[in-house]
């Protein structure tokens, strides 16, 4: 590996000496989570402008690339890799120097992103994910479901509540029942003609009155009037 690196360094220097329009760079091989990436030999690096396209491959060290004979211009540099995703870079090649910028897709080409160092260093920002995965049966996940917890709790109450009621003495029971009768609106106690809208609106009118007013407003703005 070291031998290749030496050769490549020599090559960089030579390439640079021969033509000012050689671009060099490498794909970062350590990603944030500490893994070391080896790029496959089919990883292509592409430099493209309106009228030119250059394609090169990853060198034997598994990370570096060199573009030779590049004419001056403004290029987009992208990496074709089946395994990793890379940002596209803007590479401006001029007589004297090379400037590299990040690009933001969907923006005008003149809108340059942050300046990047040269030689180009391009790190994959994510592995390519092509698949979706099926969720298998998981008892823990099932138990974490809030709906299930609620239903289990109610089920428990069904069994537990009568027991608690039983353990109370009859006078206390009567007191609780009276309190409940007071606090619960009569509408809930009589669910047949309960008007949800007026209950939510905070109207405390009696069930019969609220029921008739609701039906009146319905006939005023409801679909029936629209038909006529």
């Amino acid at each position, binding site marked *: 590996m070291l031998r290749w690196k030496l050769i490549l360094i020599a090559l960089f220097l030579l390439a640079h000496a021969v033509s000012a329009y050689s671009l060099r760079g490498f794909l970062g091989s350590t990603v944030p989570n500490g893994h070391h990436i080896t790029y496959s030999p089919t990883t292509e690096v592409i430099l493209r402008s309106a009228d030119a396209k250059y394609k090169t491959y990853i060198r034997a060290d598994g990370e570096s690339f060199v573009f030779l004979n590049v004419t001056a211009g403004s290029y987009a540099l992208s990496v074709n890799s089946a395994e990793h995703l890379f940002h596209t870079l803007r590479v401006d090649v001029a007589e004297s120097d090379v400037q590299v910028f990040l690009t933001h897709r969907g923006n005008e080409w003149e809108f340059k992103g942050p300046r990047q160092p040269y030689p180009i260093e391009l790190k994959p920002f994510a592995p390519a994910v092509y*698949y979706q995965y*099926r969720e298998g049966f998981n008892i823990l996940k099932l138990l974490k479901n809030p709906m299930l917890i609620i239903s289990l709790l109610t089920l428990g109450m069904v069994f537990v509540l009568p027991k608690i009621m039983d353990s109370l003495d009859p006078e206390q029971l009567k007191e609780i029942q009276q309190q409940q009768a007071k606090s619960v609106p009569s509408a809930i106690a009589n669910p047949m003609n309960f008007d949800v809208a007026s209950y939510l609106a905070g109207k405390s009118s009696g069930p019969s009155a609220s029921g008739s007013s609701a039906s009146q407003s319905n006939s005023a703005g409801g679909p029936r009037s629209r038909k006529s």
Partner: protein
Amino acid sequence: MNVRALSLFLILVTASFVRALFADEAFVVDWHIRSIGSIYSALVSPDSVAVFSESSVLASLDPINGTIRWRHWLDESAVPQHSHLIRLDSSAILLIAATPADASITHIAAWIEDSGYLVWEAYLSGGAPVGVSVAGDVYVLLSGGMVQRLSRRTGSEVWEYSLPEGHYPVDIVASKQSVSVITRKQDKGLGYFIVGAESGELASDNLVVIDKNAAAVPSVAKTEGHGSDIISWTVPGEGGSIKFANLSDTAMSVYTIDPKAPYASFSLTSTSTGIVATLAGLDGRSWAELYSTSGSKLRLVGVTSPTESTIAVGAGKLFEISKGSISRLALGSDGANVESRTEVGLPSSPIEFLTCSSSACLVGFKNGEYVLANITGVTWTRDESIADVVSALFVELEEEGESLSLGEVLFEENAAPLQAYIHRVKRHWNALAGLPQYVVGFFQRFMSGDYDAVPVDPNSTVTDTFGFRKFIVLATTKGGLRALDTAHSGAFAWKVDDVLESDVVVGIVHGDAKDKLYVVGKFGTVAYINALTGKIVTISKIADFGLGDKVESVVTFVDDGVQYISAWTAHGQLHFLNGSSPSKSVYFSKVIDNAVVGYIYKEDRVIPTWRFTLPTSSYKITSFASRDPDDKTVSVGRVLGDRSVLYKYLNPHILAVAAVHEDTKSAAVFLIDDVSGRLLYSSFHDDEVVDTAAGVKLVVGEHWVVYSYWSELATRGEKLVVLDLYESDVRNERWSNAQNFSSFTETPLPFVQDQAYLFPEHITSLAVSRSRFGITNRDIIATLDNAQIAVIPKRLLDARRPINRDPTNEEKEEGLVKYDALVGDDKRFIISHVFNVVGTKKTICNPAYLESTVLVFAYGLDLFFTRITPSQPFDLLSKSFNKGQLLLTIFALMVGVRFTGPMVRRKQLNIRWGTQN
């Protein structure tokens, strides 16, 4: 729209945009066949077979099984016609090739043979490579007359030498000490200069003349190795004499061979026993002649008898390859002796390519097959004809249970009752043989809940339960047909070579019966074949085919439910292939000479009716498309959120034509009615810098057109434009009242809603999915130049998506989401996942029996097949469905009921009795 369709529609509208291939379905529902194309040059060694193909693919093949170890598609940087594939050292190979633009630049690259990594590359200006020689370092002779020495380690230039004026470069032979540059000059003839390998300067100023009369020789053949470098040539007008010179020989004698018989081609090789000339005669027979050289004398040692077989020299040994055997010969003064002979089955097609090494021969046949054969037999066979497909189509297989033929049904219906009864009992008795297999299959399927649990027999022509198994028939440029089995990773179901008897296949099309195909040739040959077996039913020439006429394409018409198949020729003739021609007038259009011409066929004559020319002659038509006639429409309108309807413009005659303007770098798209020639819509992209070389890619769907092009302005990228066509911009307004759309009624122009999106990759072609009944949503299938294939839901490319605001409730009901210019960033849209599907040219779709599922096949260099479900697999039980879990739940419920039942009963009883316990 019936009720079932409506309920399905509701399911489909609620389906989400993002979906992907399930990890457990990858490599199961899809397959990929990698190809290299016709081999241009090869290096055969015991450890590897390196090849460079006419499709510009450099690859290394496994010598044991022939699989591709690695390959690179050097599409734009290497032209095979000016290429040299040569070994650099034991671990690396070298490819020297001209770059395509004008072949003025040579690209040279060294690759590690095992892994495919690039070691170094260099660009040499000075023309195409004429000759290459490796002697430690690399010596390249360019067509501009330059010789360059490149370092074998880095590819950097060591020195450069230019030939004197007037000398044309012919070839180069290098050794450690000196480099012989062979040239030709009008007054000097064929000769060579000696250049010092170290200095890069002429060792002596004089041209060493080899042959004074050979000034007009365009090229010489060179064979290096075995301690001697031989160049050979023939001089026109000197009879059939072959001249050769040994460059390693200091005396530089020129020898002349007069072969025993007239020959078509020859090759000379230096071996340990002498110089072997292998010759192919004018009558197709070949032979070999062995000569020994001593001083300036040439002596014929031995000669083999002419044979139908092919003769080649590999690593100093003489091989004879025939249809049935491969032999190694020892040629001596007593003629040829067979050293060893192995019976092998080789294709019967003529040999077109042959490279031998000491270990094996790589033999290429005219039918596109390549065989690596050694003296013990055939090691492997690769079929590369599928790398170059002219036309492809899906063929439906028989349905299971179709064992009862039509003839049998008729017999049982019409025969005397007793006879019919006996026939039926017999038939059932015969069917009993399949019972055990059926029972086993039934239980397997029941236990696993998986229809794939019972594999389909690869040799049968019966489809599977859901119609996923079909044949794909490919017509290749090699003149053969190949049928691929979609259920068995694209294995060949059958193959036919040279189906049209040396005519060139133009197209294949379904015949009147669903299992029959017409294969149409350029020079008027038509074969009618059985698509399930590949058997040729009939083969004939088109009657009254014009002299010098050529078939350009196959045109089909459907008139009153009858299908008419015809061949359209360069002379503007229509030849109907299935005997009958339509009685009524039929209309069609063709793109000819950068214009669209409409024709009418009536009373056996083709009459041009209209002509659509582009606004200026600088526009060049790059592509055109029309709607698939088999595509179905379930609803004529689009229901909006407020229950009003926008009626779709369902004109089946829309022809979309795309053109680019080379000078202004702009693009234009025109929608034409191809019966009346009326221009329905046009759109110009003038203020953009369009990549005119890539052109515009087009697809026409139900009532919409989607096209894409790469441009530099306003933002750089691939633009994907959608045109949704409605009958009117007024809701609930409809012009076409009949079921069928007529191009002759004066309907107003369509109301077109358009929208553009940005796609991250370069698109090379577009296609649209087609389901069985057209209820399922449509997906746009895009092949990308990074060797992947993506799907884009058409629903995502909706021109009605609200811009810069959230959708209203009504719009949400329509399934619209807020407009976002960027589409396709998610890699889960890539249906080819990790496959590298190189060089795709076209995608075709075919529905499965299930409405949800569409079979997709892409071809070009590689072949790729998968199935997609644009609206989720709503009619298929999911793989994650757990039968055991369901049974367990039911069991748990039963247990629960069993326990709680008595409890509830006791409680109710207690309440009635008024007791608490």
